[in-house]
């Protein structure tokens, strides 16, 4: 209740105290099951837990920022690759989502026969749980038996070893799969925003002689801008930590050319990188990931007022 903002602290405490009761269970959950594990994770990143085979569940030692120093000196090439890959993954995906989403939405925003059918069909991929379709996509990209290569062979193109040969091939497979997962959502969101633009603006513009392109640039885009920026930023933050596409399709390969922070971290702790779980390294990469995301979010909050409504 915004009109209470002017009241004194004592007045607000007396009248608004039941809020604390409502928040009590959530605060307990957040402290015990979010804040404490995060702090614990930061602590583990400053131990020798698992590195060099010395650590076990019972004995590991605090070693300060040694792991971070290692990541910035000897391990700098890996760290740099993870930064580059994470940004390429998130940035590249979002640019593609926005271009394809905007393009398809503006095509769908015309009076076309069968528009409702197109819209329903385009939404299909989004309705399937990503984990399930990703497993199938992994098989579809297969070198010997993948359906994508068999179809390329049909039109005379030789098979491509998508996931294991070159970084370019692996990234192409990842981006195409990620587009498939996300373009329905972006298209429908932009279409909904376009349809909320008052129609008389376009009528007035076309009476004044504005063509389709200049109508798009001068009416549609300005109206869409807040949605595009908001959805784009959220998409970036989401994709930066989107684990399953990379984990299931390339698992960071070939080499570490598609490895991002979160997959590296999971693999260090529980995965394919060998028998010893490198908990301290894994924790360190997740802390670095967290720091990058926090910095990006702070910039977003300071530089735009898009989140104002949300944080109100």
């Amino acid at each position, binding site marked *: *209740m915004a009109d*209470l*903002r002017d009241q004194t*602290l004592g007045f607000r*405490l007396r009248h*608004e105290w*039941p*809020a*604390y009761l*409502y*928040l009590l*269970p*959530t605060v307990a*959950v*957040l402290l015990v099951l*979010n804040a404490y*594990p995060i702090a*614990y994770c930061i602590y*583990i990143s400053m131990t020798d837990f698992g590195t060099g085979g010395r650590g076990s*569940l019972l004995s590991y030692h605090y070693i300060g920022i040694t792991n971070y120093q290692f990541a910035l000196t000897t391990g700098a090439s890996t760290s740099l690759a993870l930064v580059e890959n994470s940004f390429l993954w998130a940035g590249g995906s979002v640019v593609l989502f926005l271009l394809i989403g905007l393009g*398809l939405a503006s095509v*769908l925003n015309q009076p*076309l026969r069968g528009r409702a059918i197109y819209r329903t069909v*385009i*939404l299909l991929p989004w*309705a*399937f*749980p990503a*984990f399930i*379709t990703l*497993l*199938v*996509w992994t*098989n*579809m990209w297969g070198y*010997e*038996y993948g*359906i994508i290569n*068999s*179809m390329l062979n049909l039109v005379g193109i030789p098979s491509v070893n998508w996931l294991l040969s070159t970084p370019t091939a692996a990234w192409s497979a990842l981006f195409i799969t990620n587009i498939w997962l996300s373009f329905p959502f972006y298209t429908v*969101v932009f279409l*909904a925003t376009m349809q909320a633009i008052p129609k008389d603006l376009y009528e007035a513009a076309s009476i004044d002689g504005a063509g*389709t392109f200049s109508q798009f640039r001068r009416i549609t885009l300005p109206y869409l801008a807040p*949605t595009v920026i*908001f959805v784009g930023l*959220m998409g970036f*933050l989401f994709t930066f930590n989107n684990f399953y596409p990379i984990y299931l399709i390339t698992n960071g390969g070939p080499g570490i050319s598609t490895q991002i922070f*979160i997959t590296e*971290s*999971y693999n260090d*702790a*529980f995965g394919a990188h060998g028998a010893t779980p490198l908990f301290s390294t*894994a*924790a360190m990469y*997740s802390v670095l*990931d967290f720091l990058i*995301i926090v910095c990006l*979010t702070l910039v977003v909050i300071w530089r735009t007022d*898009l989140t104002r409504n949300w944080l*109100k």
Partner: protein
Amino acid sequence: MKPRRRRRWTRWAKRIASHVVLIIACIFAVFPIYFIVVTSLSTLPIAGITAHVLLPNPSQLTLSSYNTVLLHESPSYLSLLENSLIFSGSAAAIGLLLAAFTGFALSKFNFPGRRTFVYFILLISLFPSVVMIIPFYLMFAKLGLIDSYIGLIIPYSAGAVVFSGILVKNYMDSIPDDIEEAALIDGMSRTEAFFRVMIPLCLPVLGLAAFLAFMGPYTDYAYAHVFLTSSDKWTLALGLYNINSSDTGTQNYGLVTSFAIVMSLPIVAFYMVFQRYIIGGLTLGAVRG
């Protein structure tokens, strides 16, 4: 060409180009799903799958893969489904309760510390959830909670709280304060107003929050893979991953895809029916869909 004929011609060209673009988009969207459906109706090993399976002879289609997946796999589909429902159902119930309380407190109260709290949950939500597995695993290993139902329900429920809380708060923001005030004037306490007025008004968003909280565990592999070691506690996601990765190329690939379809169907149905709410909810009200 005369100007008028030219304009008509360009309009036709535009219309045809639009249809072509949309048809390509639809083929792209449908192709993997079509592939899943067609192969689920066959019993071919993955090594036998070529472009020819895309145009099958109708008489060769068979439901035998479905039969095997549903009735003759171990652990059985029913046991996997039961575990998935236990995990997802508990997470959805707990998450929903917490989200309703949080949303109400953040939306309808102006308590001291409110802004700090919002920034606090925003900060927490930025920590990547997949790597929370590391501290959870180490904490729960000490407590002996690995490979137990409760040991996985706890992190699942914790994961849903932040996003659902913000979702419910946004929805409640759009409900005028007058409605609650009217209830207070009628002699209800604020608690009564919450349960008897606000909760019923928020049913759509609470349904969405519950669904999203349900979906997380239903399709989670990262946590379950680490936490569940005995196969009698496995979920559907683990079962699907297991069938898929045990496929050496000679086994019937239809098992993977028919499992995928049976597991997806309830979710697909829900998405198709409630897509409007879900899209609106996922953009946190930035778009009126």
